[in-house]
């Protein structure tokens, strides 16, 4: 399954398939699919859309890597949404409350974000490891609970600005300067954090012992156990890691643009993360591609109102892409395995010495 064909064919197929399906839907509702696509592409060049795509892709990348770490060992961290929001909230509260020199301040905030995310995910991890509670259910519950907790924290530690409730404005020392591109907007400085996390993730999974154990646990928990992998420890650490990275996802926006956490903090990052990780096959580059695609669809869809096409078409497109991509992967995987078995069969046939050379021995 290591050929480029096997890697690239499925997403390409999926995107084409979804595009065809959505075109059909568009045609039924009387819109021109080509014009719609052109309009969406054109939108990238307008205003700050290009930069917004990059910025949001950064956040998406982080949540998707958080999801991918879980997927590597068949853990489904549906709680990314809650971890991301809660971590953003707590980090913003801390950021607004302390005063530290520039740099150190932001570093502290990043650490607080990661720790909060990890801790919130850790509840699910502990419940799974010690009480056998499915992480799917516990993280769903934790997502909802995080909403209440955030509301509580914002009320107690936050302040009111006009009609919006938010945490205290973060002083300049806590901010992370971005890369200003004039009228095109400002790329968040913490997008670099996403890049770093990506590199770290790639190294971790491919080159380290921990990464190997992670993958092994996912591919076959029983084999991993027999191979000395401590499954409890793996579940715990993988969930903590996943939560920590999820906890970073809200920070680029907060430290780069909003300078506060308000109760209007965007929702839906968690599920986007799951979908993007699937799309990118948990591969560091694949996920990057997925994050950019997702972000592009999100941002460019803002223009669809302009040409009278319902924005919802993009949600349908996203859903179809996810489904189509996994189907395509499965089909390609089956074909590749059959091909490989044929190859092995051939190799064995040509090298066939004797079936039973075991007759003679000492």
């Amino acid at each position: 399954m290591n050929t480029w064909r096997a890697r690239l064919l499925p997403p390409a197929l999926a995107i084409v398939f979804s595009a065809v399906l959505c075109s059909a839907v568009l045609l039924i509702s009387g819109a021109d699919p080509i014009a719609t696509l052109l309009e969406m592409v054109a939108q990238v060049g307008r205003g700050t859309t290009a930069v917004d795509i990059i910025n949001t892709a950064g956040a998406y990348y982080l949540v998707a890597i958080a999801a991918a770490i879980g997927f590597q060992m068949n853990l489904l961290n549906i709680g990314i949404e809650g971890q991301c929001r809660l971590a953003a909230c707590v980090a913003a509260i801390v950021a607004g409350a302390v005063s530290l020199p520039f740099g150190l301040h932001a570093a502290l905030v990043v650490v607080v974000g990661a720790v909060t995310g990890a801790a919130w995910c850790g509840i699910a991890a502990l419940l799974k490891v010690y009480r056998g509670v499915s992480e799917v259910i516990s993280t769903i519950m934790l997502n909802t609970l995080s909403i209440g907790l955030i509301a509580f924290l914002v009320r107690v530690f936050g302040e009111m600005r006009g009609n919006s409730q938010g945490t205290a404005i973060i002083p300049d020392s806590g901010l992370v300067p971005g890369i200003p591109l004039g009228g095109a907007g400002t790329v968040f400085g913490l997008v670099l954090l996403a890049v770093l996390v990506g590199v770290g993730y790639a190294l971790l999974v491919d080159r380290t012992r921990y990464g190997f154990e992670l993958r092994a646990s996912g591919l076959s928990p029983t084999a991993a156990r027999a191979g000395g992998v401590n499954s409890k420890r793996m579940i715990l650490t993988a969930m903590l890691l996943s939560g920590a990275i999820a906890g970073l996802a809200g920070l680029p926006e907060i430290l780069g643009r909003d300078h506060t956490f308000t109760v209007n903090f965007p929702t839906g990052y968690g599920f986007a993360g799951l979908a993007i990780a699937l799309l990118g096959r948990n591969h560091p580059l694949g996920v990057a591609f997925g994050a950019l695609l997702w972000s592009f669809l999100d941002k460019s869809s803002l223009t669809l109102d302009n040409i009278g096409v319902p924005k919802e078409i993009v949600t349908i497109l996203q859903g179809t892409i996810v489904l189509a991509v996994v189907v395509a992967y499965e089909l390609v995987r089956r074909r590749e395995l059959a091909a490989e078995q044929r190859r092995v069969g051939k190799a064995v046939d040509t090298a066939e010495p004797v079936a039973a050379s075991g007759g003679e021995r000492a």
Partner: protein
Amino acid sequence: AKDTGGGGDAGGGGNGPCRLSAPPAGAPAAPTSATTTEQMPPPNASAMRVGVAFDIGGRGDASFNDASVAGLDRAKADMGLGEIKELDAGAGEPEDAKQTRLRQLAREGFNPVIAVGYAYADALKLVAPEFPGTKFAIIDEQIDGVPNVTPLVFAEEQGSFLAGVVAAHKSENCHIGFVGGVQTPLIQKFEAGFEAGAKAAAPDIKIENEYLTPAGDFSGFQDPNKGSEVATGQLEAGADVIYHAAGASGKGVFGAVKGAGAQAIGVDSDQYHQPTVAEYKDVIISSMLKRIDLAVYDYIAAVARNDLSTVPKKFDVAIDGVTYSTSGGKIDDLKTTLDAYKAAIANGQIQVPDKP
């Protein structure tokens, strides 16, 4: 056996109607001269292109988005606007989506651009300075210091005060309820005013109040199921007039009220005439009107005249920016009382709190 509609009686352990205090006397008749703009002939604005960025819900939400639509439509009819472009928001969208929406309108030459909802506040602070030649307005948020932004804000607490007075007078148990959608500062203004009004009219009154969700969980504006349960709870506790500020969850409130044969007060626009809740018409005795339509109309007219100073600083009872509706004729008997309170608020005799 089939439960016949309205069979339940809400006044189970009732304690009878309230002892009512007299309406404030001696207040001079309210300065009915509404706004200055109203009296002038509508200007011609046929060349004007108006951009509108809606909050979640958009055109047809039967709430504040729709109220601004009403203002736009009237402006178009009276002043002949050249073009109107409306853009919708998505649920839970990030800040940059709002910015993009505003920029998009400004860049395409729409002027003025009206941002509906306080959610646009931060985005507007950022975008407005980028387009100094474009005039912006924002509904429901006070933004100062940006010269090309006009805030259009309302004294919801004053309108809700009147709703409180209505409720106190109409309650047969001297027990009323308030259902808030999401516990945000804006909705708390409704609660504060309602309570103050009810207490002013009947100092002994019992008031239930409950929010569907805490701040940040905006599903409270979208969950009639919960609205219905909360209202039922209040009705069973003895309340018999319920005022809601719960967006689309209000449907559930009306449903519960109708089931119990009690009375309800609507919010924002005249819900008696609203098609989406037409089936509950008969229990809606009044609505607290928040005249976003008026604000939008005034603002467009002011832009057309190129004189923004005529836009009121705050749309309050004094200029009928917030008021009550009488459709259905259920509170015709209260008109004088209400107008007395109105006058007292307008001339400062009564100060309505905006925090509970």
